[in-house]
């Protein structure tokens, strides 16, 4: 299987705070990787560096064979102009904890915004595929609603449809259910599970251990900016080798 995401010794600090401290991670195409770890362990920052929302201090990340945000010449990485970064980003879908839907646009306008303006798709075509995507996330009847008129779970499903509209090679989820009322978590996880079943490459940062056990091909456990251990869910979740992992799991399970 080909490697979709290749992360090599990535370091990142915010001022004096070392957030990522030498991360190495490979994600193969078609696999679901779930990242677990306590708050402040660097999970979200790692996810954000993958689509260059956060710049790394050291190391490199490539997605689908292309470096994110940089061009390599000799032994140097030159930061790319924004236009080029934006073009590479369209191949990576990102789903935020707080949805970040555009509140002044209707559901369908939210979904077609990127295909129309970033990929220059004809509007009519984009609207048609937006309706198909909304159907896929179970919101075909909400196309003309404004985000505010939807529940949190529905908003997050629209956000997923919006990310899918770019037909990304990779989907990143940053705690997609953490801002939801408990009874709404299931509907969002259903959609993500459905996508996993169709072979979409995904990296999911979450606190939903049961979801990780069921859907993940690989579980990665992070603490203090490092990957403490990784492996199939059966190993990491059932027979963790490291004390930090055991301590974390005993608290959340």
């Amino acid at each position, binding site marked *: 299987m080909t490697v979709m995401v290749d992360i090599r010794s990535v370091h990142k600090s915010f001022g004096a705070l070392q957030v990522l401290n030498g991360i190495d991670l490979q994600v193969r195409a078609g696999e679901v990787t779930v990242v677990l770890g306590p708050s402040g362990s660097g999970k979200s920052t790692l996810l954000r560096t993958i689509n260059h929302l956060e710049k790394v201090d050291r190391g490199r990340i490539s997605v689908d064979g292309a470096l994110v945000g940089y061009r390599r010449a000799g032994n140097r990485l030159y930061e790319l102009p924004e236009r080029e970064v934006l073009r590479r980003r369209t191949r990576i879908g*990102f789903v935020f904890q707080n949805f970040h839907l555009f509140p002044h646009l209707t559901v369908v306008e939210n979904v077609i915004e990127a295909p129309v303006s970033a990929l220059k798709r004809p509007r009519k075509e984009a609207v048609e595929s937006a309706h198909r995507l909304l159907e896929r996330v179970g919101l075909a009847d909400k196309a003309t609603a404004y985000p505010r008129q939807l529940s949190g779970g529905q908003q997050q499903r629209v956000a997923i449809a919006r990310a899918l509209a*770019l037909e990304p090679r990779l989907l990143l989820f940053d705690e997609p259910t953490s801002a939801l009322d408990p009874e709404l978590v*299931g509907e969002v996880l259903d959609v993500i599970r459905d996508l996993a079943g169709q072979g979409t490459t995904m990296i999911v940062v979450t606190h939903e251990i049961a979801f990780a056990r069921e859907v993940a091909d690989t579980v990665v456990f992070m603490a203090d900016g490092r990957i403490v251990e990784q492996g199939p869910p059966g190993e990491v979740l059932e027979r963790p080798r490291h004390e930090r992992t055991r301590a974390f799991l005993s608290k959340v399970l």
Partner: protein
Amino acid sequence: MSSDTLAKIPTAADTPEPADAPRIVPQRRYGQWAAAVVVLVLLGLAVNSVLRNKAFQWDVVADYFTTDSVLRGLWLTLWLTAVVMVLGFALGTLLAAFRLSANPVLRAVGWGYVWLFRSIPILVQLLLWFNIGALYPQVLGVKTVDLLSPVAVAIVGLTLHEAAYAAEVVRGGILSVDRGQIEAAQALGLSRWRRWRRIVLPQAMRAIVPPAANMLIGTLKGTSIVSVIAVNDLLFSAQLIYHRTYQVIPLLMVATLWYAVVTSVLGIGQYYVEKHYARGTENAR
């Protein structure tokens, strides 16, 4: 996938009320009634005194209300306001971008501009521009006095003044937009221009429109200050007439009523503009 149908839950309206249920009696607010009566009486007395006071000379007001020179003055006031608002907000938006820029030099220049032009009284600024020939007699071989007519002085002075305030209004609007909106737009690959035009500005407008409308109405009346440099605006036209006829009060009333008419029309416009930018918010519909 979850369905969005809700089970029918019996509500209070479905159950018949028992006959002996106690009736709810709202609190009687006698104080409110008394206050309303007092205010209405005072208002009536004030209106009565204005209408019955012969010195207002309402017949003279009616005579001059639509005189040619007054209408010409009104027209100048209207287009001067429009030009100053458009140029002021264009420059103000640029200055707001400066102040929010990552470039420290641009930030400092933006800050310095706003500080300077909010510090100079508009009257002083107009007089300075009016007398600019005393400071710079010639610019590029042309006499400054010929370059800046009184109307041009009015446009330049009012615009520079307006821009300093507009910059703060626009900056406040932009800061009111959630940072996550910009990140989401970046993650979707939207270009810088598209993020600004399609995502940030429409949301910022909700916070920009009310103070901008305030500024528009303020500017409409504020343009009357150009009468000091003999620009023929609404107020100056009225003044020209009363300098001749000595009917000071009625002609001030003519100008005042026109300002009130235009302000009312602008207020109605503001309502619709605000409604437009409230799309998708709790205030919509």
